[in-house]
């Protein structure tokens, strides 16, 4: 049994839902993301948010998987602050949907001033509504700097409790600083640019299993919607017991996400 707490199912087929269910997936959370091209109008997000809150939960339910979502304009589309603020203004009308857990995945991509401004606007919305936050950290050479800038921006919002914020896509050089500052951390099992299952298990061995989860971040790129059960296999093969496997792939995401009051596994 497992939870994949970060996967972009709008980009995946219904066959993937079936395979995930067969591998033991009982619940997922889907953060709002960049579709690979910039949307031409805020109305494009209105439709996307309907897909996330209405259509995907029904598609997932056919396979016994509970679908939840996080809303935002992703940092990859946040370089135009006027456009981004129009999208943020659409979010409140969806916040009463029972499967919306909070704001995400917000953060930075290239660590630009405009991205920072829109990150701060999202954080203000989360703080004003007492919402949980799921954070995307930048890729590759931009990750370390972006992770530090994001953590500072969150700390500037006194109303945001770090224990209700998860900072995702951590790797060996960022996991320690994220956990030290009281946040939850996510490891993403993604080819080439993020963690392999082997490295994720290494990070558990080095940093422990408190406030740490793993996800596939499966999306429209080359990625693997079964990455979490594959990491479970790696943990077992490396001699970790079932309690440890369950803690990182089920108990931890359940504990973090349940703070929303909306997360369900059955």
């Amino acid at each position: 049994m497992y939870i994949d707490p970060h996967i972009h199912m709008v980009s995946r087929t219904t066959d993937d839902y079936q395979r995930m269910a067969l591998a033991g997936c009982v619940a997922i959370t889907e953060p709002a993301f960049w579709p690979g091209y910039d949307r031409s109008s805020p109305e494009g997000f209105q439709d996307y948010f309907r897909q996330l809150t209405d259509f995907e939960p029904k598609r997932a339910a056919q396979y016994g998987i509970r679908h939840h979502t996080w809303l935002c304009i992703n940092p990859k589309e946040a370089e135009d602050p006027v456009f981004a603020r129009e999208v943020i203004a659409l979010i409140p009308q969806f916040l009463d949907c029972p499967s919306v857990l909070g704001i995400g995945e917000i953060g930075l991509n290239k660590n630009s001033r405009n991205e920072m401004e829109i990150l701060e606007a999202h954080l203000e919305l989360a703080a004003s509504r007492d919402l949980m936050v799921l954070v995307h950290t930048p890729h590759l050479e931009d990750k370390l700097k972006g992770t530090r800038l994001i953590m500072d921006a969150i700390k500037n919002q006194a109303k945001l409790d770090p224990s209700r914020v998860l900072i995702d896509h951590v790797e060996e050089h960022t996991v320690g600083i994220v956990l030290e500052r009281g946040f939850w951390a996510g490891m993403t099992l993604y080819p080439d640019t993020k963690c392999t299952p082997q490295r994720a298990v290494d990070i558990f061995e080095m940093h422990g299993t408190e406030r740490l989860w793993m996800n596939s971040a499966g999306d429209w790129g080359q990625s693997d919607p079964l990455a979490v059960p594959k990491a479970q296999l790696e943990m077992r093969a490396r001699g970790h017991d079932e309690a440890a496997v369950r803690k990182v792939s089920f108990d931890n995401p359940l504990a973090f996400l349940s703070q929303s009051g909306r997360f369900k596994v059955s």
Partner: protein
Amino acid sequence: MAHAPTPLSKRALIDRSYLEHRAKVLDLASFLDRIDRASGEGADDFRMRAFESCCALLIDGQPNRAQRILELLSDHSTEPIARAGTKGATGAVPPSSGGAR
């Protein structure tokens, strides 16, 4: 639980994964050979200079190689940039950015 120490012994880990990583070393070697054989520009590409520095860290005998390689490949500047000219990242710090360590 503060941490979950590696349950397998050194020998068991080597038995389990040596061949997989032997193959990865050959991939690295043949990648470098392939670039040598190819013509055109790129001999001074900043990504390959960074790659060589990473290879040196692999054999320096010190711990936390993965963390140190990621730090070597990270932008160490601290201020937001003026504008995001692109959405992508290159995997090493471009010399023009001023953020290389």
